[in-house]
C-alpha cells in the first residue's frame, strides 16, 4: 500500500488539484478570515469617507499579477461605490497595466449603476516617470490631457473636483512592483496625504515600516488581504456574499494542507519501506547463513 502511494502517477495529483480548485471556485466556498490590523485600518479609513469624496488608485503592476490585484481592486470598488465615493484610476508608473484598469472598474460599476466620467474614470499611462509624484501635488491636468478612452480632460466632470492629492480622501497603490517605497518617499512624505497600498505576498514584509511610521493608513497584503476585506464588507452588511478572494483563500488552504499532507505521507512511506527492506535483507542474510551452515 505504501509502495503504491510512492509510485502514484502524477496525473492523479493534477486531477486532485483541478477538483480542489474548480469546485470551490464555482461554489464560491468562502473562508471566513479574521481581519488583520492593516486591512482593518484601511477599511476603517475608507469607511470614514463621505459620499462625494474621491479616492485615487494606482495600478503599478503587470498583467501577470491580475489574479491578485483584480480582487483587491474589486473589494475597494465595492466599498467605494456602495458609499457613493468617486474613483479615479491611473497607471503612470507601469505602462503594461494600461489595458487592465478600465474593464476592472466596469465590472463593478455596472452592478451599482455608476456612470463612467461622472462617477469614475480611468486615466491610464503617462510617460512622466517619477515626476508624477511631484506633478500630482499641483494638478493632474499637467500630466493628462485625456483619459484612456481618449476623452478630453475638461469634458470629464469627475476629474474637475479631484485634481491634486489634497482633493482626495485616499491614495492607494496596487503594486506588483517596488513602487510603494517610492510613493512614501517622494509623494506621501513631502505632500502629506492619506496613503495606502495593496501588494503581492512577497512584498508584505517591506510595508510594515511604513505602516508603523504612520505613512500608510492601511495595507491589503496579497490575496489574503483582499479576503479579509471581503469579510469586513460582509460583516458590515455592505455586500451580501463573499467574493473570489475568500473563495480562493479557501482553495489555497485546501491545496496547501493537502500538499503538506501528501508530502508527509510520502516521507512516512519511504521511511517504512526502507525499514521493511532492511528487515527483508536481514532475514535473507540469516537464511543464507543458515543454508551455508547447513551445507557445512
Amino acid at each position, binding site marked *: 500500500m505504501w509502495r503504491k502511494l510512492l509510485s502514484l502517477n502524477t*496525473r492523479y495529483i493534477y486531477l486532485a488539484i483541478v477538483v480542489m480548485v474548480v469546485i470551490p471556485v464555482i461554489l464560491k466556498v468562502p473562508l471566513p478570515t479574521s481581519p488583520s490590523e492593516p486591512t482593518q485600518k484601511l477599511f476603517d479609513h475608507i469607511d470614514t469617507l463621505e459620499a462625494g469624496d474621491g479616492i485615487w488608485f494606482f495600478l503599478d503592476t503587470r498583467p501577470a499579477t491580475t489574479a491578485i490585484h483584480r480582487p483587491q481592486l474589486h473589494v475597494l470598488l465595492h466599498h467605494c461605490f456602495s458609499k457613493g465615493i468617486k474613483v479615479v484610476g491611473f497607471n503612470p508608473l507601469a505602462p503594461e497595466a494600461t489595458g487592465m484598469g478600465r474593464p476592472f472598474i466596469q465590472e463593478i460599476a455596472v452592478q451599482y449603476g455608476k456612470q463612467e466620467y461622472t462617477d469614475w474614470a480611468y486615466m491610464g499611462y503617462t510617460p512622466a516617470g517619477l515626476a508624477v509624484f511631484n506633478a500630482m501635488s499641483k494638478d493632474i491636468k499637467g500630466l493628462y490631457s485625456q483619459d484612456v478612452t481618449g476623452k478630453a480632460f475638461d469634458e470629464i466632470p469627475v476629474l474637475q473636483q479631484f485634481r491634486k492629492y489634497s482633493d482626495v480622501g485616499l491614495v492607494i497603490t496596487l503594486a506588483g512592483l517596488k513602487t510603494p517605497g517610492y510613493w512614501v518617499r517622494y509623494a506621501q512624505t513631502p505632500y502629506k496625504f492619506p496613503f495606502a497600498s495593496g501588494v503581492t505576498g512577497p512584498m508584505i514584509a517591506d510595508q510594515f515600516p511604513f505602516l508603523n511610521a504612520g505613512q500608510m493608513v492601511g495595507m491589503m497584503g496579497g490575496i489574503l488581504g483582499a479576503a479579509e476585506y471581503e469579510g469586513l464588507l460582509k460583516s458590515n452588511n455592505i455586500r451580501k456574499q463573499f467574493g473570489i478572494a475568500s473563495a*480562493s483563500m479557501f482553495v489555497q488552504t485546501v491545496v496547501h494542507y493537502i500538499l503538506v499532507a501528501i508530502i508527509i505521507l510520502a516521507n512516512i512511506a519511504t521511511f517504512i519501506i526502507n525499514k521493511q527492506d532492511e528487515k527483508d535483507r536481514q532475514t535473507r542474510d540469516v537464511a543464507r547463513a543458515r543454508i551455508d551452515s547447513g551445507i557445512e
Partner: protein
Amino acid sequence: MEIVSLWVIAFFSLCIFSYLYRNNPFYKFAIHVILGLMVGYMFLQQVLIGLEQLVVSPILEELGQPSPDPFDILIQRVLPLLVASLIFTIFVPEQRWLSRIPIGLLLGYGMGYMLTKSLEADVFKQLNATLTQSIAVISGDSIFRSRWPAWGQFLPGLSALTVIVLTIFYRFRMQHPTIRTIIYIALSLFILSLADSIMILVGVLAVLSYFFFSFERRGLVEEVSRVGLVFMMVYFGAVFGNTVLTRVQIFIGQVDFLVFEWLGGTWQALFGG
C-alpha cells in the same frame, strides 16, 4: 466580438491545459499556432521595423537634409549593416568562419558590459550592504547588549577571539573533538550576542566558503561549507514554499475566467440570463 474572443481565449487555454494529461493534437495545434504567430511577430518587429528604424529611415532622414553627410551614413549605417550581414556566410560552408566576426563583436560587447557592471553592482554593493548592516548593529546596541549591558560589551569580541584562537589551534595543533564543540558554542554565542545582520554575515561567509574550488573539502572548510549548504537549503525551501501560494493563485484566476467570464458570458449572450 466579445463572445468570439472569449471562446478563442478559452479554447487556447484548454488546449494548453490538456497537456497535463498527455501530449495531444489539440496541444500541438495550439503550440504551433502560437509558434507561427510569434515567429512572424518577431520577424515583423525585430527585422522589418528594426531595419527600418536603424538603417532605412535614418539614411532617408540624412538624405532629406539640405547637405547630407555621406561619411556619416557610411560609417554609422552602412558599415554596421555590412558587418552584421557577414552572419549570413553561415550558408556558405567554406566561408563560414566569417560569421564569427559579428558574433564575436556581439559577445565582446555583452561580456565587457557585464564585467564592470556585475563587479560593481553585485560584488561590491552586496559586500558593502552586508558589512554596513552588521557594523550598524555592532556599533549600535543589539538585543543582547540592551539586556546585559555590563558584559554585553565584551562578549562579542571575547567570543569572536575565542573562536579564532581555538580554530587556529584546532587547525594546526590538536584536532580534539572537545575543542571543536567549544568552538561551536563560542561561535553560536557570538552570533546570538549580536543580531540578525550578523547571522546574515555568518551565512554569507559560510555560503561563500561553500564555493571554494581550490581546496579539498576537508576539516574546517568542510564544516563551514556544510553550514553554508544548510543556509542555502533554508533559502531554497522557503522560496519554494512561498511560491506555491502565488502560482496557485494564478491558476485560480484562470479557472475564475473560464467558469464565470467564458461560460457565464456565453450563457448571458445566449439566454440573456
